């Protein structure tokens, strides 16, 4: 506590709320009053000052912070990905609508099935690409960058994609087993390929590969693509495992700028 108490005159001016008090003097008086009960008593007769102070003090000690729910959300979802995840939901709904309208009528090809592996690719690209995340360089330089954050953000993408597709599957009658593995394999595949050539390029390459090899022929020839047969489950499992191995081996790539071109 300081021995220099404000003069009666400056206290009076402070009390009146004069707006010509120099800023440094104002701050000095204010911070002095925070710590000096006798001076607060000089300002107003004691019972009033003490009562006001008792109500004010808890508010002063509390540091404002953002709501807990918002903080938890940001811990999982990449802030840049929100609009893209909304798009993923829209595309799922559109695929369901196309199926219901029966554009592929008479055949067993489902649009839901054809877009399923591409939805997480979009989400992953939005979460990690340098082009889509404005704070990318900042985030890459933090200790959380790397596998822990990759898994959080990827889990968040899947938390949107998988329930959406499950719902779509229920509505259109497409079996769980048909789309889940390709969907996961493409998710991990984007990350794995991304550690080598950059996430954006990886996403584009996988999308193009899917379009030509799998989605294209059935749309043209109206039959369920060979690669979506349940007999190929071991192949998808192998691809998924290989992708995971590459991601773990190349984990340092997520902490550098080069990967995320």
């Amino acid at each position, binding site marked *: 506590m300081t021995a220099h108490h404000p003069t009666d005159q400056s206290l009076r001016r402070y009390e009146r709320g004069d707006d010509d008090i120099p800023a440094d003097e104002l701050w000095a008086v204010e911070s002095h009053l925070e710590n000096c009960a006798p001076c607060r008593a000089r300002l107003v007769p004691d019972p009033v000052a003490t009562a006001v102070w008792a109500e004010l003090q808890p508010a002063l000690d509390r*540091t*404002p*912070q*953002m709501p807990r729910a*918002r*903080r938890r959300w*940001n*811990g999982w979802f990449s*802030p*840049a990905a929100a609009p893209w995840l909304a798009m993923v939901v829209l595309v799922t709904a559109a695929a369901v609508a196309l199926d219901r309208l029966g554009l592929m009528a008479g055949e067993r090809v489902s649009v839901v099935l054809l877009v399923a592996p591409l939805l997480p690719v979009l989400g992953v690209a939005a979460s990690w690409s340098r082009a889509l*995340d*404005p*704070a*990318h*360089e*900042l*985030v*890459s*330089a*933090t*200790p*959380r*960058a*790397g596998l822990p*954050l990759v898994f959080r953000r990827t889990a968040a993408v899947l938390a949107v994609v998988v329930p959406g597709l499950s719902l779509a599957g229920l509505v259109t009658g497409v079996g769980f087993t048909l789309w889940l593995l390709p969907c996961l394999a493409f998710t991990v595949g984007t990350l794995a390929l991304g550690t080598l050539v950059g996430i954006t390029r990886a996403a584009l390459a996988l999308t193009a590969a899917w379009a030509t090899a799998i989605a294209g022929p059935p749309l043209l020839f109206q039959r369920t693509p060979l690669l979506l047969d349940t007999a190929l489950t071991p192949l998808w499992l192998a691809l998924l495992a290989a992708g995971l191995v590459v991601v773990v081996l190349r984990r*340092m790539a997520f*902490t*550098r*700028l*080069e990967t995320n071109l």
Partner: protein
Amino acid sequence: MRAIEADNLVVRVGGRRGRNAVNGLGLRLSRGVHGLLGPNGAGKTTLIRTLATVQRPTSGSLSLLGQPVGGGLRPVRRRLGYLPQHFGFYKRFKVREFVEYMAWLKEMPSRRIPGAVASSLERVGLADRADDPMKALSGGMVRRVGIAQAIVNTPDVLLLDEPTVGLDPAQRLRFRELVAELGEQSCVLISTHLVEDVAAACTDVVLVAEGSVVFQGTPADLVNAGTPEHVGDSPIERGYSALITTRSGGAW
């Protein structure tokens, strides 16, 4: 222990047909405020990125805070503060929210975050804008948020790439006071093209050209390098141009 120790550092950028942006650079820095000066394309940003551990050195050795920079970056990164040249941010975030998010990414203990965010915003003079959305800020204010997020974890090594861009003269004066305070506790490296910022704020000057250090000394040493014949409006600018032109043989 030195905060930054680099030996024979080479950093290649631009892929296979790229160039060595940093070329055989040696640097030793401890506590204090260090100014990194040099012409455009001298490798300042690549050097700062390498020191911030987001760019991998092609060869040579680099230690930060006594730890060789290689595999485990997390312990070192917790003690780093970094403001990139292009400070990107999330427009929909509020100022406080953005700095809190960065503090979380820097793995600060969650009970320390609200207090640290409030005090770093106070230090850059944005305490009263904490609840404004980022997109409502002016260019100078955005830069100050960038400084706030860099210092929120009270880093031991603080790397600022062109921090004074967009600040008005009064804000630049306040910025110099702030870095002088920070330099008492940590190693602050400021990359800038404003020679007068260095003269006023830095205890030490590092001059780079073509990817290596051509001069390291006090601002007074830099002044002494110049003569009245050299180009420049102030003694320190003349010193700068004396050291740069003798190397590259031209003002451009």
